[in-house]
């Protein structure tokens, strides 16, 4: 056992400018509604972002901001009866996924695009050996014999660092620790060498020392196989560690998007800046902790104009009016970044350094 000094990756060139020239995943103007007691409510409002080949893009924001709904929409896994994609597009390598027949979508999922969730037990079947579950995914998408699929399962389990993989392939999910189960999930997600992996809070339930291992593993796998990763998290530290670029969500909208170094060094949206200022620092006490007044609005009662205006320290009258249509549109800025703030050119905001 050696203390390994590993560096986070330098910002990838693949997706410098909003996903770069060769995006593998393009989400455009996505609107999603949910059926509630109060009728159909809009929970995602014009979400757009793209992911370059091999790039890791973070989606970050407070709970309820729409991160999980975004990842489920991309995967075509929204609850079928109580939700609808009412506008927009999700293209995977140029192929439109919105409106795709269920059969066809199931073929894409697990093959070209796959997922890792916070609680692996919800995605792993407790009644089957993990090796068989991975082999099943391989056979469904790649065909071939059961035997070759099983061999592939052992191979990927070994790749993700499960010791004694051939034997452990015959274990059941509950026989693994939380960290090892997450490795199994990564193995399953990687088994068919997808172009994109959507990971929704994959390390949130893990201890920090185990989280560090899993992040290193995801970084290595993504680099070695050129897999693009959409990494959903509420933890700005995790984004800084593993992502090339990040998309900040607030109240069902993307409010800022930039290469991580730029985002942290000089945020261009007051919400991003407020989140960063609020992070307690591992390096020391800084008087009273900063808070953002009020709380996230609920779908169905979104503030007019800029949705962040009731909580924003920089709000002025025109923030309530918004742009011509009463909303605030995304502003494209130099360096391939963007911000949904009317005052973006007037404000200088503090980052984390």
């Amino acid at each position: 056992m050696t203390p390994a000094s590993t560096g986070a990756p330098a910002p990838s060139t693949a997706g410098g400018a909003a996903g770069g020239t060769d995006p593998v995943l393009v989400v455009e103007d996505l609107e999603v509604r949910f059926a509630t007691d109060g009728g159909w409510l809009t929970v995602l409002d014009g979400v757009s972002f793209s992911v370059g080949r091999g790039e890791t893009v973070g989606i970050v924001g407070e709970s309820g901001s729409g991160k999980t709904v975004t990842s489920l929409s991309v995967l075509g896994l929204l609850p079928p009866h109580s939700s609808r994609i009412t506008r927009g597009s999700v293209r995977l390598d140029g192929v439109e996924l919105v409106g795709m027949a269920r059969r066809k979508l199931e073929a894409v999922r697990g093959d070209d695009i796959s997922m890792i969730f916070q609680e692996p037990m919800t995605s792993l079947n407790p009644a089957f050996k993990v090796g068989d579950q991975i082999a099943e995914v391989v056979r469904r998408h790649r065909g071939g014999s059961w035997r070759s699929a099983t061999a592939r399962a052992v191979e990927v389990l070994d790749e993700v660092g499960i010791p004694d993989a051939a034997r452990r392939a015959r274990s059941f999910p509950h026989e693994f620790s939380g960290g090892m189960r997450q490795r199994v999930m990564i193995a399953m997600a990687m088994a068919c060498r997808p172009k994109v992996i959507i990971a929704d809070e994959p390390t949130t339930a893990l201890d920090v020392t185990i989280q560090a291992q899993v992040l290193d593993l995801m970084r290595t796998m993504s680099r070695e196989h050129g897999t693009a990763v959409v990494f959903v998290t509420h933890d700005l530290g995790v984004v800084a560690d593993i992502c090339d670029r990040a998309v900040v969500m607030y109240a069902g909208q993307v409010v800022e998007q930039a290469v991580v170094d730029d985002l942290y060094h000089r945020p261009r949206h007051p919400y991003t800046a407020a989140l960063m200022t609020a992070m307690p620092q591992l390096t020391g006490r800084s008087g009273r902790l900063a808070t953002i007044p009020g709380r996230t609005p609920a779908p169905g009662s979104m503030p007019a104009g800029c949705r962040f205006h009731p909580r924003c320290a920089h709000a002025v009258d025109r923030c309530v009016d918004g742009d011509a249509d009463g909303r605030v549109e995304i502003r494209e800025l130099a360096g391939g970044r963007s911000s949904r703030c009317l005052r973006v050119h007037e404000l200088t905001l503090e980052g984390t350094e």
Partner: protein
Amino acid sequence: MTPSVDRPAVGTGKPTAAVAEAPVPVAEVEDLDVEFRLRRGPLGGTVPLRAVRGIDLAIGERETLGLVGESGSGKSTTGRALLRLIEPTGGRIRLDGQDITALRGEALRGVRRKMQMVFQDPYSSLDPAMVVAESIAEPLDTHLALTRAQRTARLAELMEQVGLSRRHLNRYPYEFSGGQRQRIAIARAVAVHPRLVVCDEAVSALDVSTQNQILNLLEDIQAGSGISYLFIAHDLAVVRHIAHRVAVMYLGEIVETGPTDRLFDRPAHPYTEALLSAVPLPSPRRQRERERIVLTGEVPDAADPPPGCSFHTRCPYVMQRCRVEVPAETPVEGGGTVRCHLRG
């Protein structure tokens, strides 16, 4: 207690190193042991699991002691044993110098007032069928004989103290956000003027802004009433902010204690060092440039901890003697104690 410099500093906002003649701590555990029986094996037999293995802790007046460590290391069990919510298998628990280890019945009920708890999920501590007023009044009714008017006044005062309105008293828990529910849980905990509140992952489920509001509230309450906290959390940045001293647990043992700044700036135990190094910093540049220790291996089975130093299966500095010899508690320069052969 074993001879040690790990005495709580008392009365000051930010304690420094050892205090020569420390007054009686508010709460203290000595050589605490908690054992569970685990059902395991094909014959339905049980095996012992020592969740807490002979630990010493002391919490001073107006002090916040942070308790950190991996999942399953015994933090909650320690907190619950201290509050006499579970029976320890060994050791002593003292509150304001009084041995409460064996108290029963009425006597136990008397000291219970002085120790309260706030959990991660206020849903589990607030009865969903009770309006807020009833939830908060429950400890008042159990422990204090208040007149109707006094009771009403105290409820209003508590609501104001935790930043809620009196109007909220007649609402049900589901009508509140996570942060508001945590305020209600805190109001309930401090209602009967306890000496100590055990906060077990009290802010872990909250968004950063709400979390900070709750942390500020806990600090305000401490500044006002001199209450002490045992603050159990896995978020080390939060612990650095709120704790005066910190204790680090690993597999049921305390491997390091110390004043917060010393422990975070100069960790003495390899596990503390690895734990701090694993927290990703919210700055891509600093995170890239930093030396990191990535531990290999998994947390061992708590029912079958390794012999010698229990961290030796994952320690980057492991030596031959670590595998056989239990490291003794040693004072650390700058305050606190460590159990590691490197520091012996």
